[in-house]
């Protein structure tokens, strides 16, 4: 076996350009697959971290009637905080948010919005809520950059907000945009307007009530409470995993094509070399190899492309991948229009398992592809092979 590796190595290096072309194509597959998967993992991490920091904290309690996909539930989905929440709320470890529907009228257009009342002193979310406390002539509000774009509102703009209070009575007032934040979590940006919690409670005639309550730490065990549904961080981020899975499935096609190209090149090389090297095959047999051993030699030779490719990939791939992990990959298009949790710059995250499994998959595939045409040798007649008789 050691001899087969030695011979295979000499034969490959001896074959020169053809070997290197195959090796470069293969090494490309290594780097691209690892990089793409790294980007996906990085995206998954980033999306979950962003969700944690901007939207869900360590998990949430939802009012039992609350359904984020159905704004009409909002009229029903609010209740006073359960007594057992109060100490944590006071300590800032839990933050109640009251949510309602409303309309704003930027530049005279009407726009449906979700109004969120949030404690200006909260520290669970990265939202710049402290400005909601400012003393101004209108109600201070903040919006996200996506919302700013669609509504064409800027910091310092006044806009009319209309809402219905708990009794169903319409009312309207002006709000002042005091801040625009940048988050890559569409759910808390698009169509959302934030004002101070006590202000909204007052406007809604719902003092002390909330729709969702977010807690900071996911490590504290939580119990269900009557009227409220516990949503753990895992449940809330599951959709991210699903989204990544869907995206990854699309990418698998890309890996498939890349691998297919590389494998076609290797297969072709194998078929050609078995055809062209009949005399050499005959010589190996005359020198004392069995045909099976020659099959082994040619298989090793083919699969060694993958080994060489791994080294070549390491030579240019490691610096590239490391640089990417540090500098990140900035998407050439504006990601805020994707409608999903994706940052403009993604930082790929690679795991040892990812590298090992990629190398293993590529090597095994290459070996199989090298073996298939080599089986032909086992059926060759050594005397015909020696004569180089075409078959």
């Amino acid at each position, binding site marked *: 076996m050691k*001899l087969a590796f*030695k011979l295979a190595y*000499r*034969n490959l*290096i*001896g*074959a020169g350009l053809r070997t290197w072309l195959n090796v470069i194509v293969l090494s490309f597959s290594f780097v691209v697959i690892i990089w793409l998967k790294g980007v996906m993992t990085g995206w998954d991490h980033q999306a979950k971290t962003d969700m944690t920091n901007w939207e869900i904290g360590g998990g949430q309690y939802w009012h039992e009637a609350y359904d984020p996909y159905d704004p009409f539930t909002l009229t029903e989905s609010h209740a006073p905080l359960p007594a057992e929440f109060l100490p944590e709320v006071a300590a800032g470890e839990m933050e109640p948010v009251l949510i309602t529907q409303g309309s704003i009228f930027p530049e005279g257009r009407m726009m449906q919005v979700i109004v969120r009342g949030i404690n200006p002193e909260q520290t669970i979310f990265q939202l710049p809520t402290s400005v909601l406390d400012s003393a101004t002539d209108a109600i201070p509000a903040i919006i996200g950059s996506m919302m700013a774009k669609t509504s064409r509102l800027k910091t310092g703009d006044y806009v009319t907000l209309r809402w219905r209070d708990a009794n169903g009575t319409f009312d309207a007032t002006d709000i002042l945009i005091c801040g625009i934040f940048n988050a890559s979590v569409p759910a808390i940006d698009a169509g959302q307007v934030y004002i101070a919690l006590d202000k909204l409670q007052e406007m809604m005639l719902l003092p002390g009530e909330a729709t969702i309550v977010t807690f900071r730490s996911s490590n504290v065990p939580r119990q269900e409470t009557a009227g409220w549904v516990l949503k753990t961080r895992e449940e809330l981020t599951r959709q991210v995993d699903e989204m990544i899975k869907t995206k990854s499935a699309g990418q698998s096609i890309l890996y498939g094509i890349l691998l297919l190209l590389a494998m076609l090149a290797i297969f072709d090389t194998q078929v050609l070399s078995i055809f062209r090297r009949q*005399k*050499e095959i*005959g*010589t190996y*047999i*005359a*020198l*004392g*190899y*069995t*045909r*099976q*051993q020659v099959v082994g030699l040619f298989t090793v030779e083919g699969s060694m492309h993958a080994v060489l490719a791994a080294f070549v990939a390491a030579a240019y791939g490691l610096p590239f991948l490391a640089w990417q992990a540090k500098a990140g990959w900035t998407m050439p298009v504006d990601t805020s229009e994707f409608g999903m949790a994706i940052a403009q710059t993604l930082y790929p995250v690679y795991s040892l398992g990812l590298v090992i499994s990629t190398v293993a998959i590529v090597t095994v595939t290459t070996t199989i592809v090298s073996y298939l045409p080599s089986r032909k040798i086992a059926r060759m007649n*050594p*005397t015909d092979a*020696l004569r180089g008789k075409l078959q």
Partner: protein
Amino acid sequence: MENKSIISISRLIKRFPMGKDEFTALRDISLTFTEGEFAGLIGPSGSGKTTLLNIIGSLDVPTEGEALVLGRSIGKLTTREAARLRKENIGFIFQSYNLLAVHTVYENVEFPLLLLNIPSAGRHKMVMDALEWVGLTDKVRSKPPQLSGGQCQRVAIARAMVKKPSLVLADEPTANLDADNSHHILQTMETLNRELKTTFIFATHDDKVISYLHRKIFLLDGRVDKDEIIRSNKR
């Protein structure tokens, strides 16, 4: 002292399938070779020289009859046993040299020793000795494409001889060489035959080769036509 027989062929018949029919390439061959012979199978094209040599070399099997080579019956060997017989006891020399083009002269000659798992210390000396026999110690690092035909054939001889096999089979070894080179390699083989007691069997119709032979076996249409012993190689 009588030399012992290393090859004994009796009533050997070889047929090849040819479409629906069969073609008989060797008809009823019976021959015995003793250790240290320098013999040649001589005959016109198609007379069966290569076929017989291939059977002796365990690359092919008899259709009928028996070929005993170094005590082993060629027709009854498994492919593994046949490979082992070739690996340990038989050296081949081909008309077109059949060197491994991407390997150096040294590596080509080393190859049979690698197959035999000879430790590297002994291997180096054996390779250098073999290259010395054929006068190519200065070409160790060259690759076959950089050598002349005569030099290539000398590498092939070194490769066949390096493991000091009992038997060397040479199929038209001079067919691609000019007269000077032919004489050179024939002298080399004659010397090795004398000094190492290696049995040489040629397949040839080249007069230069024939003039060196100690035994001439004339084949015609797959039969032994004449078997002449020119010089006894007993000393």
